[in-house]
């Protein structure tokens, strides 16, 4: 498993194994492989870009046709891989009707059907919700265990995948900083302050509270639960303050409905909620439940079919877009210029901002990338550039769609601080996110969306502590001892 900061070179390293995809030029050193190039298969984070044909069966056949397989072999290989991954019923469905998780399983099938010896996975769960991600990773583990296949997994965080990995590599500015077996690797990360945020919440808790005796890292939730129960008297819940005192209602949505087809189901189904000035709101929920469509509808990117949307007590007018900023799921969509400098200067000019270019570059860690084309930035860097544009605008409401996608834990922490700072200055934020930890740590109110319907916004503790499956790992692990704990920070060693 390879982790590292956004833009540290993880994906570039991974692609060196595949000459057809390798970018840049090797300036020195050699890459020695004991298996031929065609024994490497690759799955990227871009779920939709990897499927060419209209159905999974056609796509798998396309791959095998290119390999020159006979019809009999094609049939057998598709049968094998579909049975193994449990996707038989998906084979003849249209790709457009599949969820993100199902599409990523098809992409995995497309790689496995080649019978590789090494499987390269570049952030395969980046666009998936936590439960779907876990299912995919379990499948990857099955491949690893049953076929003894080597898996090289690039990830931004360790939280889920760490349970399945044997070795941990940390990359920093193109260099390998750590290359150790997983247990030692986790300890090394803990010892290095700049990487502590990468640790899974469960391991971070035991290391921070010094609870580890004879257990081996990484810890699963059951082990952590046992340790915490045994040491309950030595621990205490950190006092928390969930006071929420925002201003007037600034944005109202009443009985909103939206569907894509005349007789189709309502993607947004009678949704109503209010946003109060200075509040931060997060909508969580699995893939494909209508979160992005809701965001697009309330920001007038899609035309609502019925319902009311009020901004500052009035119907939305043409100048609504001047008061708000939208960060879409693919941040590159909002770029308009050739360089990072030009993008930032354009926004500073548009909003007659008091900030200087250098201040912004420094705040968003973009100084070294000032002359880079925005499309050449890594996923996380693009996300940060897009966020910089939003914060320069200093809108009244900031709408963010999956803002932590592609961000490493340190960058996610920085984003959390920016959200808080923006809020402190009177700004209001509405976010869609799969990232439950981010939602729990930085937002005042959380709601869940499913089947086009949205639950009431409640405080993070009220929201997560009532959930059984859809909650943070710490809450799952220690709910018997500390039911209100959501992150490792919520539990500390007792001072008495």
């Amino acid at each position: 498993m390879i982790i590292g900061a956004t833009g540290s070179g993880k994906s570039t390293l991974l692609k060196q194994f595949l000459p057809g995809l390798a970018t840049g030029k090797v300036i020195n050193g050699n890459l020695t492989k004991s298996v031929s190039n065609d024994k490497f298969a690759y799955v990227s984070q871009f779920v939709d870009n990897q499927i060419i044909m209209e159905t999974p069966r056609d796509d798998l056949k396309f791959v095998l046709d290119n390999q020159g397989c006979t019809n009999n072999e094609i049939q057998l290989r598709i049968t094998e891989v579909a049975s193994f991954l449990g996707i038989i019923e998906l084979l003849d469905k249209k790709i457009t009707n599949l969820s993100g998780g199902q599409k990523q399983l098809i992409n995995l099938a497309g790689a496995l059907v080649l019978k590789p010896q090494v499987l390269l996975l570049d952030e395969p769960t980046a666009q998936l919700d936590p439960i779907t991600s876990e299912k995919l990773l379990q499948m990857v583990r099955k491949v690893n265990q049953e076929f003894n296949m080597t898996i090289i997994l690039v990830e931004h965080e360790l939280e889920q995948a760490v349970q399945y990995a044997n070795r941990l590599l940390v990359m920093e500015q193109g260099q390998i900083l750590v290359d150790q077996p997983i247990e030692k690797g986790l300890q090394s990360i803990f010892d290095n302050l700049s990487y502590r945020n990468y640790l899974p919440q469960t391991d971070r808790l035991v290391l921070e509270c010094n609870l580890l005796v004879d257990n081996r890292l990484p810890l699963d939730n059951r082990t952590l639960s046992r340790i915490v129960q045994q040491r309950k008297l030595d621990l205490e819940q950190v006092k928390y303050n969930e006071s929420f005192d925002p201003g007037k209602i600034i944005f109202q949505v009443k009985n909103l409905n939206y569907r894509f087809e005349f007789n189709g189901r309502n993607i947004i189904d009678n949704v109503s909620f209010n946003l109060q000035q200075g509040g931060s709101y997060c909508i969580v929920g699995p893939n494909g439940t209508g979160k992005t469509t809701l965001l697009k509808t309330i920001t007038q990117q899609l035309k609502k079919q019925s319902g009311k949307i009020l901004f500052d007590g009035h119907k939305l007018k043409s100048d609504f877009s001047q008061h708000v900023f939208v960060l879409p799921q693919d941040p590159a969509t909002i770029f308009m210029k050739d360089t990072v400098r030009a993008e930032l200067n354009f926004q500073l000019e548009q909003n007659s901002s008091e900030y200087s270019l250098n201040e912004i570059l420094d705040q968003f860690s973009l100084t070294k990338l000032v002359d880079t084309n925005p499309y050449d930035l890594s996923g996380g860097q693009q996300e940060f550039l897009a966020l910089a544009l939003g914060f320069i605008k200093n809108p009244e409401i900031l709408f963010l769609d999956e803002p932590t996608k592609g961000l490493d834990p340190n960058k996610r922490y920085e984003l959390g601080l920016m959200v808080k700072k923006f809020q402190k200055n009177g700004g209001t934020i509405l976010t869609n996110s799969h990232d439950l930890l981010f939602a729990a740590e930085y937002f005042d109110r959380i709601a869940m969306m499913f089947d086009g319907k949205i639950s009431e916004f409640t405080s993070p503790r009220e929201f997560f502590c009532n959930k059984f499956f859809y909650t943070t790992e710490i809450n799952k692990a220690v709910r018997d001892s500390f039911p209100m704990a959501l992150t490792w920070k919520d539990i500390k060693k007792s001072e008495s």
Partner: protein
Amino acid sequence: MNRLILFFQKNVNSITVFAYLLNIILVSLLYNNPFITITILISLLIISFLTRREKFFSYIGFSSVVFLVTVLFNLILNQRGTHNLLMIGFLKITMESLGNSLILGLSFVNLLWSFYIYDSFARTKVIFEVLSRLFKSIAIIFILTLKFIPEIIQTFTETRELRKFRVNIFETKGFKKIQQTIDLTEIILDKAVAKFMNVSDTLILKGYEKQHQRMGKIFFKRIDYWTLTLIVGSFILDFWFAVTKTGQINFGSANLMIGFNHKIFMIMIINSVLILLPLLIGGINYQWWKFYISKTTVSNTITAKSYR
């Protein structure tokens, strides 16, 4: 999609589907005798409705507009004829010009509906397999285009919408508006190139550049031989009718003659059968299954029972 048509689509190979689609386009182009074009239109509408119902009514609207516009334009451009019906200023409408206009409108509409069916039936893989057998480089351009065009449309829509949140002043007229449109186009092209590269990477991963042999080994079953025989037979007949100008009228003439004889009737029947072929083949097989196979299959499974 209707289950009888789905049966056809699932049980014939890509060559047969392609031949069927080419033939219905050809049939829509060849004839302009209104008896034939109306029969063809009815058959096309039946298949279209059964194939892709969800877009049928919006396409009816679209094709009606095209029909009306074609008729109106032709009434203005071709005012020949001696049997006056109406005079409005410079516009003289005669029996002949109205006939010509309606015939042209019908022909256009038939062509539109044949492409509607083509769009409903043609799967990427069908076209790709056929193309790659003949022109490999065209096949790759086809597949890239097919992935690429919807991406560009999506990029255009998203960029136009999201630009509102970054730009404060939108010019509404004059040179500055043109400049803004040019800027938007440039932005979209930049983004499109990035997306194009993603598709290209995917093709590399799927091994297209090292393709060992011709794509898609196509196997012919009895149903393919029968269907292709019917299609080729009707193609030969259509070709012969076209050479002998049967089924065609003296379109555009001031002396419009619309005839009907046994040959016209034959063309109507042949072409209707050909267009309705998926429905007929599906229907025959369904009846065969329902009244013979399912009754002779000794099975107590719920599926077999429900078929009986």
